[in-house]
């Protein structure tokens, strides 16, 4: 392979790698945004939508960067709103529906503990922009993690009903956790280039941290042998199409419209 071709492939992989990180925040942010005005109480409504806002802010930084290094003429909005389902590389966990407060918190908790580890390690990337975004995000994600972990304990170690609901949500969402630590071809290329984080190495710490909180919450740690995957390769659950039809409606109906 000549060097120019190799460069261009590295480049494409970097953009894919950025999608892999940013799409998680985008889709989770969209899910949390659905709760605007619909949260169970005013405080939790504000908290969840604040988290959504943080995630969207981070997404903008990633997409501005991806648009800037892209060889095509694209904007951050094109990347957020005009890709097709298969082109979104988020994990299945973040696209799971809000269902009830236990699911919303469970999903957030399982993601936050991964997110914080990823950001901590992304700070050592050879890519300066990704380092800057990670250093900015880590401060925000720490708050998210604290919020979701507190609620896990409160609901788990709460009433009989809250415990049962929280346990059901964790049991149900657990099958999506293993995928967080899978790597795609683009990921592997970026790890080799010193840009990406090898998420495989975060798995042990993740399950240890998550288990500690679950134990404190007097919840049982699910024992699963089989896990779901696919999102990182663009193969999503049936929920994804519905999220996108809602999220992309404006740009698809009125192409190029601005706020």
């Amino acid at each position: 392979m000549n060097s120019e071709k190799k460069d261009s492939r590295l480049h494409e992989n970097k953009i894919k790698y950025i999608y892999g990180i940013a799409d998680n925040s985008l889709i989770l942010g969209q899910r949390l945004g659905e709760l605007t005005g619909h949260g169970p109480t005013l405080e939790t409504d504000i908290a969840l939508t604040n988290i959504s806002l943080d995630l969207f802010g981070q997404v903008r930084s990633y997409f501005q960067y991806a648009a800037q290094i892209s060889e095509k003429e694209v904007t951050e909005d094109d990347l957020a709103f005009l890709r097709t389902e298969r082109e979104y590389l988020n994990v299945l966990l973040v696209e799971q529906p809000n269902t009830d407060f236990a699911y919303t918190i469970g999903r957030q908790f399982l993601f936050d503990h991964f997110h914080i580890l990823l950001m901590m390690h992304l700070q050592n990337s050879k890519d300066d922009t990704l380092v800057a975004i990670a250093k900015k995000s880590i401060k925000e994600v720490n708050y998210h993690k604290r919020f979701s972990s507190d609620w896990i304990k409160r609901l788990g170690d709460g009433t009989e009903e809250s415990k049962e609901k929280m346990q059901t949500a964790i049991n149900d969402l657990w099958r999506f956790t293993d995928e967080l630590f899978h790597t795609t071809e683009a990921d592997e290329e970026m790890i080799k280039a010193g840009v990406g984080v090898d998420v495989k190495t975060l798995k042990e710490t993740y399950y240890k941290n998550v288990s500690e909180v679950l134990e404190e919450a007097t919840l049982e740690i699910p024992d699963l042998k089989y896990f779901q995957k696919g999102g990182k390769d663009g193969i999503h659950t049936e929920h994804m199409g519905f999220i996108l039809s809602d999220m992309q409606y404006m740009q698809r109906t009125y192409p190029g419209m601005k706020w």
Partner: protein
Amino acid sequence: MVEEKVHINKELEPILREVPDPEIPVLSIIDLGVVREARLEGKKASVKITPTYSGCPAMDVIGDDIVTALTNAGYQAKVDLILAPAWSTDWITEKGRKALEDYGIAPPMDASADKKALLGEEKLVKCPQCGSKNTHLVSQFGSTACKALFKCDDCQEPFDYFKCLI
């Protein structure tokens, strides 16, 4: 306190000082610590600002307000958003902290005190209305991304606490 060298042109500083934070109008963007650089070459002013929180919707407004203020003062202004180094509540000046408190927002404490307060372990946040520390956390997230909601158990007033971010 983190020592940060920030170059702000002396001629531009008074103009930038007049630009308020749109959410907290008593606080100048200089005292908020979001202006990271202001350089002047002839009549060309270039300003670099950094967001408090990634998703802070005030940043676009602040950028526009800076351009307006500098244009009105006869400069050609350009504003860039930078991410690194990431903003810290340590960059809020003493004057800024005072302005926050006078306005009814409890200023950020140091990181370890902040953690204890936000975890509800200790009563440390001082009510900006009556000065009592007999306060409790209502919500870790408040009216904007940068604030938490507290309530004073003495004067019963709810108030915002500017979360520590370091």
